[in-house]
């Protein structure tokens, strides 16, 4: 999927996640006091805009390139620079074309996303708008020097529409950040409750920290998928690290045990502290079906037993050799009969 079609699929999604519907657009325009008159005024200076577009863009990039960071940024990226300049010109000309509705907004969001993706910092972005307003402003007052009021009004309209654009651009930056944060949080949640394969057919799930309803159901889903993937017939669910279990979490535990049972797997809950035991009894949790154990050691032993494992300690015959190697005498032959 090339960049352009990837973009195409993306900006309707942004519009949705930012909830920028007709109502929202209206609200933002009202806030900036941008109305039909402004739209008309902008359209009226469109011809002028087309005339000085190239000049303004060149001036702008000359200014940009006078800064070391920007020079560095675009240094080995001539194609990118040309692409961005082109986008700028299109963007610029769009400001005076009228029709500042859904399609306009989506276009602005698309541009914002592009800038965000190439890593353009927010202050550069704002600096651009500022330079632009000044460059255009100067030209407006020169062109309409005999009608300063007209120039001023046009300038104000221009300011309103650029501020609308700035708001949208910032929104796209924030949206990207939030998506990254969301993805990171998901990763953290999964990492914080790892399902550990213990032996063939046994997995262990140590739960640590406070568990809310959402996390509890996430953990259950993770566990059940793990049961399927590893064909684990026994699960040791350890809640030693869970300080507090309320009725919702308790019922989640019960549900987890039952769901695992429906998959042919047995859950042993270990680490049930006296406090949690009291909570569960008080809540009236159906303990009949659930096997609980006080400590993980016992749980593991029980899991092994259920799975048909038997752990045998190997007789310490090697220890005598160790002793000889460590300088102890081998007394066997010296023993009196």
């Amino acid at each position, binding site marked *: 999927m090339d960049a352009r079609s990837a973009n195409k699929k993306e900006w309707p999604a942004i519009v949705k996640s930012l909830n920028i519907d007709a109502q929202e657009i209206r609200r933002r325009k009202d806030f900036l006091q941008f109305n039909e008159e402004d739209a008309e005024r902008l359209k009226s200076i469109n011809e002028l805009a087309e005339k000085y577009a190239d000049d303004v863009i060149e001036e702008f990039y000359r200014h940009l390139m006078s800064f070391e960071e920007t020079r560095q940024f675009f240094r080995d990226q001539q194609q990118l620079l040309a692409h961005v300049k082109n986008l700028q010109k299109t963007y610029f000309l769009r400001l005076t074309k009228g029709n500042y509705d859904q399609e306009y907004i989506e276009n602005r969001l698309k541009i914002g996303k592009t800038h965000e993706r190439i890593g353009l910092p927010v202050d550069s972005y704002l600096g651009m708008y500022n330079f632009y307003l000044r460059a255009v402003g100067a030209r407006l007052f020169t062109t309409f020097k005999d009608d300063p009021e007209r120039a001023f009004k046009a300038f104000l309209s221009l300011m309103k529409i650029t501020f609308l654009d700035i708001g949208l651009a910032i929104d796209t930056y924030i949206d990207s950040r939030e998506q990254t944060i969301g993805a990171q949080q998901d990763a953290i949640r999964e990492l914080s409750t790892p399902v550990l394969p213990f032996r063939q057919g046994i997995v262990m799930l140590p739960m640590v920290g406070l568990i809310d309803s959402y996390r509890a159901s996430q953990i*259950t*889903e993770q566990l*059940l*998928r793990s*049961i*399927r993937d590893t*064909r684990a*017939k*026994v699960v040791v669910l350890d809640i030693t690290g869970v300080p507090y279990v309320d009725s919702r979490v308790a019922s989640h535990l019960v*549900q987890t045990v*039952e*769901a*695992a*049972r*429906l*998959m*042919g*797997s*047995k859950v042993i809950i270990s680490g049930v502290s006296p406090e949690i035991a009291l909570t569960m009894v008080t809540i009236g949790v159906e303990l009949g079906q659930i096997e609980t154990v006080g400590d993980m050691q016992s749980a593991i032993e029980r899991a092994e037993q*259920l*799975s*048909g494992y038997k752990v045998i300690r190997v007789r310490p015959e090697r220890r005598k050799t160790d002793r000889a190697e460590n300088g102890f005498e081998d007394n066997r032959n010296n023993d009196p009969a």
Partner: protein
Amino acid sequence: MLVPILKQEDFLIASIQGELSDVELLALRDQLVDKVQRHRSRAVIIDVAVLDIMDSFSARTLRSIAQMTRLMGAETIVVGIQPEVAMSMVQLGLRLEGTTIAMDLEDGLAVLKNRGSQGNDACDRA
């Protein structure tokens, strides 16, 4: 959609191949009951791995199969319930009482092999 029912030694294996309508589920029930009687099977394994939904009707039908075949001396083993299905069944309160649950076909066969001999791991797990 016809559910193939395989006869293996003294038990039957029914592998559901796709979503079944209510009518098809009832037909399966009748077929199984009939076959258990004819072959004097001691167990029926029903593989529901392909089902992505188990609602109250399917659960009830499975329970009926278990009840009816038990009257003929057979055990019903349900295998292959998927994680998402297990979750929704639990929230709906469906327990499949009267059936034995195993993880998959292999596990179900192991349960059958262990029946009657010492050590009923599946019973411990139930």
